[in-house]
């Protein structure tokens, strides 16, 4: 009987006009988005390779310079410093996340460090109207289509009069509900998967990214999360249809729920977190650190006035004061980092009320284009700065300790220069990071189905 009910649902759905709309939109949007972003990824890869090569050439040209003064100036004293390049994330083709918004090159030197924000130089409309990636399409469009596909599955049948005829037979209501869910879900999932498969095949044929091993596993996980997300909206739509008695009310309720749950809550969560868990500005922290420096300076001057500027006692005292200043500055940095972390966590947890946020976190974690990428970039950049600082200071000390004479003429080796490297996130770590959100999506699925069941058992079919 369940098979007959599911078959009826699928045939009924497939023969409906809304199925044609869904099919066209799935194919059109998913395929176009993947094709466009594949081409964009190829361009970004070429740019990355060119940039890496240019930066290496720059070092090599300096190495060949006769004037070591120029080498010192360019490398150590901040003329140009050293550059690092960040390759675009391969799975950004599917889920861009933060990939495009993080700098693709970074720069550091002893006296001046700056990140190059290439967004500043490109067409501003690219930022104003970001390309909808697969993640966005599923998050916003597929969720809406899924909801609109099933929002009247029960109440619409009641309105048309077929539900009475159906339940006049010896059919348990739970079977009817299950068939609605399975039938509705399959009618959505199959065209969705076919469209996605077409997109993945295109990526494979172009050879833009290597779709094998861990990358393929990540793609499969993203597909799995997407299926869970689509299923959630099927269950939600069925629940709404068991709470209402006509299609027009169900449509209004569905739109209200979708707008508030998918558009409002995820965007509101960071604002609420900003108000309830404020983070001091970096300028404020810098000002505080400046004040610490000034205080340290005054204390050092006082020591110098009170004691002789040499001698072990004075030296110990100066060292202690400098150490205290450093510690206070470290505490300020830590305070800022803790506050920022707390705000990010609060935003994340608040936004998780919406499955849209859970879907975004899970897919960006799996594609390594989310918060993990941001953290990885920040750590990589800090490490790059630190390593360069240590390396440069060593050479600077060598220069000064050598009676301000230039070191060996072969002192500059491109291979020994610190490079910008980002931590590679393993798939296990990505799954672990996404697990909480995957579980949340699962919980929402079960919850909506259970509620639908409860409501449908008491549903008035007359």
């Amino acid at each position, binding site marked *: 009987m369940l098979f007959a009910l599911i078959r*009826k649902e699928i*045939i009924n759905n497939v023969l409906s006009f809304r199925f044609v709309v869904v099919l066209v939109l799935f194919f059109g949007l998913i395929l176009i988005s993947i094709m466009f972003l594949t081409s964009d990824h190829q361009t970004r890869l070429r740019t990355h390779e060119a940039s890496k090569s240019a930066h290496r050439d720059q070092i090599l040209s300096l190495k060949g310079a006769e004037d070591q003064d120029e080498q010192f100036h360019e490398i150590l004293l901040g003329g140009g410093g050293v550059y690092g390049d960040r390759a675009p994330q391969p799975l950004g083709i599917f889920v861009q996340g933060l990939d495009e918004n993080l700098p693709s090159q970074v720069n550091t030197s002893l006296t001046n460090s700056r990140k190059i924000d290439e967004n500043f130089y490109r067409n501003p409309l690219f930022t104003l109207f970001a390309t909808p990636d697969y993640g966005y399409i599923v998050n916003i469009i597929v969720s809406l289509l899924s909801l609109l596909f099933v929002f009247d599955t029960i109440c619409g049948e009641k309105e048309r*009069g*077929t539900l009475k005829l159906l339940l006049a037979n*010896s059919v*348990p209501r739970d079977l009817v509900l299950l068939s609605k869910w399975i039938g509705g879900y399959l009618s959505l999932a199959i065209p969705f998967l076919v469209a996605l498969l077409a997109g993945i095949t295109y990526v494979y044929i172009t050879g833009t990214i290597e779709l094998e091993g861990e990358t393929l596993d990540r793609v499969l996980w993203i597909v799995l999360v997407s299926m869970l997300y689509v299923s959630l909206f099927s269950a939600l739509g069925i629940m709404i249809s068991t709470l209402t008695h006509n299609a027009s009310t169900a449509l209004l309720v569905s739109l209200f729920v979708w707008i508030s749950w998918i558009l409002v809550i995820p965007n509101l969560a960071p604002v609420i977190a900003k108000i309830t868990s404020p983070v001091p500005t970096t300028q404020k922290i810098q000002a505080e650190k400046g004040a610490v420096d000034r205080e340290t300076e005054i204390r050092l001057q006082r020591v110098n006035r009170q004691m002789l500027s040499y001698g072990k006692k004075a030296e110990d005292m100066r060292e202690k004061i400098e150490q205290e200043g450093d510690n206070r500055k470290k505490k300020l940095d830590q305070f800022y980092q803790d506050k920022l972390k707390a705000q990010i966590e609060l935003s994340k947890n608040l936004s998780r009320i919406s499955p849209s946020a859970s879907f975004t976190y899970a897919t960006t974690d799996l594609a390594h284009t989310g918060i993990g990428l941001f953290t990885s970039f920040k750590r990589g950049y800090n490490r790059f700065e630190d390593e360069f600082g240590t390396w440069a200071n060593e050479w600077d000390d060598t220069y000064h300790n050598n009676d301000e004479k230039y070191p060996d003429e072969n002192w500059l080796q491109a291979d020994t220069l610190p490079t910008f490297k980002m931590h590679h996130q393993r798939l296990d770590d990505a799954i672990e990071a996404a697990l909480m959100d995957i579980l949340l999506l699962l919980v929402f699925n079960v919850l909506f189905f259970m509620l639908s069941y409860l409501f449908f058992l008491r549903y008035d079919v007359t």
Partner: protein
Amino acid sequence: MLEIEGLEKHYGDLKAVKSLSLTIQPGEIFCMLGANGAGKTTTLMVSLGFTDPTRGTVKICGIDVTRDPLEAKKHVAYVSENVMLYGNFTARQNLDFFTKLGGVKDATDQDYKQVLKRVGLQDDAFNRRVKGFSKGMRQKLGIAIAIMKDAEVILLDEPTSGLDPKSGAEFLQLLNELRAENKAIWMTTHDIFRAKEIADRVGIMVAGTLVQLLTREELQQQDLEALYVQYVSQATEEAV
């Protein structure tokens, strides 16, 4: 057999059905007359297990509908006033789906064609989508579905409404055949003349109460139309 014993259905203060007791035997056609809101359809809804009675019981072939609705529904077929089927399906697909749902697994296309012919639908209707059917055609298809289920009890909610005279006459002929097959048939209707023509017994329901129950013999002796109008007018005056 359909047995209704002390049935009451209240919606808040409104008593939709009051102390209704009635038995419809196999091979009997019972017509229930009554104005809109008299409680006819509510009685049907309770009989189909769609709503629980406030008091009393309804049994189909001895099975209490409230206690075991799924088992009871195996023995009942239902045709509504305005039969609505799956519009994107053909007549065959609708028949096949509801027949399987009714527990008949081995029906063939030949069986479906025969039943469509029996209810007066043309051959070309077999593979046509139901959304293009007229109300009369849908009604006939609904009856075909009920016939395919081969249930002991048939509940008909104003089935002749919207049928043209020829189809109406064919429908009465069909009911006669079903009676001959020993089906217990309950039909609610406003159509006094058809009720008088076909029914073994006629009941008149006013404001939830069965006020009159007439046998075939009594029907021949009394002016059913005058009696019906009298009860309905009386009820309207009391309501005002």
